[in-house]
């Protein structure tokens, strides 16, 4: 008979440190290693990481609030990017903004695009939750037959949303020409403005979310509902409303992340699929269901991925996130911030 073998926390942490050390030594032996490339990797890794973090926070929020893993979250990211693009193109083509702000029409249009992506995706998320998920979550989420149903529905919803986006925006890749100004120079690295926008807006949004959850009454309610629906009912929180709010916030975060990524890459119908999996990896690495964990996991995955693709090989970029996820699951199954593994689907 096999003896059940369990790592203690100390062994887990030691192994994690060992893995990090081996990884650092390995990349430092790379011929491309120098201080400039390291700076570039750091900046780009953090930038990509904050985007993964924002999407992962949404997945974690939905997981704690609705007891389901939302596999259609990537499509909210994709539709958010299209929303931002459409609003931006509409405003900039309409010449109205150009007449008022001839100097900074691109920035103003982009900010309005971000705002609309945030608000419209929030409302769209609430609508989806009310129409599609509410009848299912009523029958019980989590580790039940209905919970499994919701997961399958998540995949179905993902296909439906992709096809709707197909019809509206057609399957070709849309370039997002946001006119945000010339690239700037930070610490010897020339960085396109789109990266700076990702970095700054990402941190602002994450900070605003932290403030919302910890300092406002509604945030207190969100945390309460995420922990226990029964106790929240007893203290007089309108739980169904708050579940909608949770879903809405998660989708709004995905929407703003989509618009932030749009100008750097392209806006395509398929862009949601890979970000969903990367964000999922981030959430697992940080500890599933933990919000600070999701952000930290995002940074970890972003940095690891960027470092590997720069120092090892750029042609397998998408594999590294999952390599890290598998390593973390093997060594430290709860992730960085996961306190306990809940029995949820």
């Amino acid at each position, binding site marked *: 008979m096999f003896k059940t073998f369990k790592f203690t926390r100390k062994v887990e942490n030691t192994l994690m440190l060992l893995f990090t050390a081996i990884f650092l030594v390995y990349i430092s032996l790379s011929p491309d290693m120098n201080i400039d490339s390291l700076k570039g990797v750091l900046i780009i890794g953090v930038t990509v990481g904050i985007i993964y973090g924002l999407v992962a926070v949404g997945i974690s929020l939905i997981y704690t609030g609705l007891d389901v893993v939302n596999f259609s979250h990537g499509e909210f990211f994709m539709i958010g990017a299209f929303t931002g693009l459409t609003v931006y193109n509409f405003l900039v083509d309409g010449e109205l903004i150009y007449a008022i702000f001839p100097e900074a029409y691109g920035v103003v249009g982009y900010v309005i695009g971000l705002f609309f992506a945030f608000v419209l995706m929030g409302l769209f998320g609430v609508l989806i939750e009310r129409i599609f998920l509410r009848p299912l979550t009523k029958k019980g989420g989590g580790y039940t037959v209905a919970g499994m149903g919701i997961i399958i529905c998540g995949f179905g919803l993902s296909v439906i949303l992709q096809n709707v986006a197909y019809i509206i925006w057609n399957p070709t890749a849309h370039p997002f020409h946001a006119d945000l100004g010339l690239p700037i120079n930070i610490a010897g690295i020339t960085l396109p403005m789109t990266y700076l926008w990702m970095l700054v807006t990402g941190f602002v949004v994450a900070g605003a979310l932290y403030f919302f959850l910890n300092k406002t*009454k509604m945030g*207190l*309610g969100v*945390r*309460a509902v995420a*922990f*226990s629906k*029964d*106790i*929240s*009912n*007893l*203290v*007089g*929180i*309108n*739980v*169904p409303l708050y579940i909608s709010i949770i879903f809405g916030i998660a989708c709004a975060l995905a929407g703003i992340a989509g618009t932030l990524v749009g100008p750097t890459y392209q806006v395509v119908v398929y862009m949601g699929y890979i970000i969903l999996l990367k964000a999922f990896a981030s959430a697992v690495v940080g500890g599933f269901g933990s919000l600070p964990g999701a952000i930290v996991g995002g940074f970890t995955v972003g940095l690891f991925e960027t470092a590997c693709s720069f120092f090892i090989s750029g042609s397998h970029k998408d594999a590294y996130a999952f390599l890290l996820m598998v390593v973390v699951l093997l060594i430290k199954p709860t992730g960085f911030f996961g306190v306990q593994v809940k029995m949820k689907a």
Partner: protein
Amino acid sequence: MLKINGLISGYGSVQILNGANMKVDAQSIVALLGGNGTGKSTILKACSGLIRSWSGSISFNGEEIHNNPPHKIVEKGLVQVTQGKDVFPAMSVIENLRLGGFVLNSKKKLEDNLQKVFNYFPRLDERKNQLAATLSGGELQMLCIGRGLMSNPKMIMLDEPSAALAPQIVLDIFKNINRIRKDGLTVLVVEQNVRMALLLADYGYVIKDGVIKVEGDSKKLMYDDTVKDSYLGGGGTTANV
């Protein structure tokens, strides 16, 4: 104040309550007694809207409240306090209390109620910035009751406030329940600790198999044999032992 008429309810398709009738007068303490699995907690859950009532009626202050959403019932002033385990462990004591006053709209009222709760339970004031997970069993129970008081209720329903607590702490909590009643609240207390509950209460109900078997003044119930029977499993067979 609270009137329950022919209440039938249960979980899923399992019927627990088979037509319970109860009445709680304003500013009184009423004890609801019964063994495990007799439907005590089910009555409370039906009153606070956590489970649907299949038939019968529940009225509070003359208003029909059965099958209202739970937060509406809290707004009307009927609050259920669960056992001490049911707090938010990752939040501080003061955040837990703030959540209790979630239905209040003004900040001033919230602060007033906080002072009121700290007045009842000075221990919570000492520990207000600690995480709820670090509190002891008695303090958790105080926190639960305090949280229930935060929303300015007219009546609170306590679900086994003495469960798994030391006798000294139970006494302290029961003293505070009496104080809460003196300040104008109505209290319905569900208990396994029969003696303590009957000492505290004015009137008692004994529930068995989902119906009220015995009711009466608590002084009278204390010497009633049927009460003893319903706790020992009934049938009177224990008399021969």
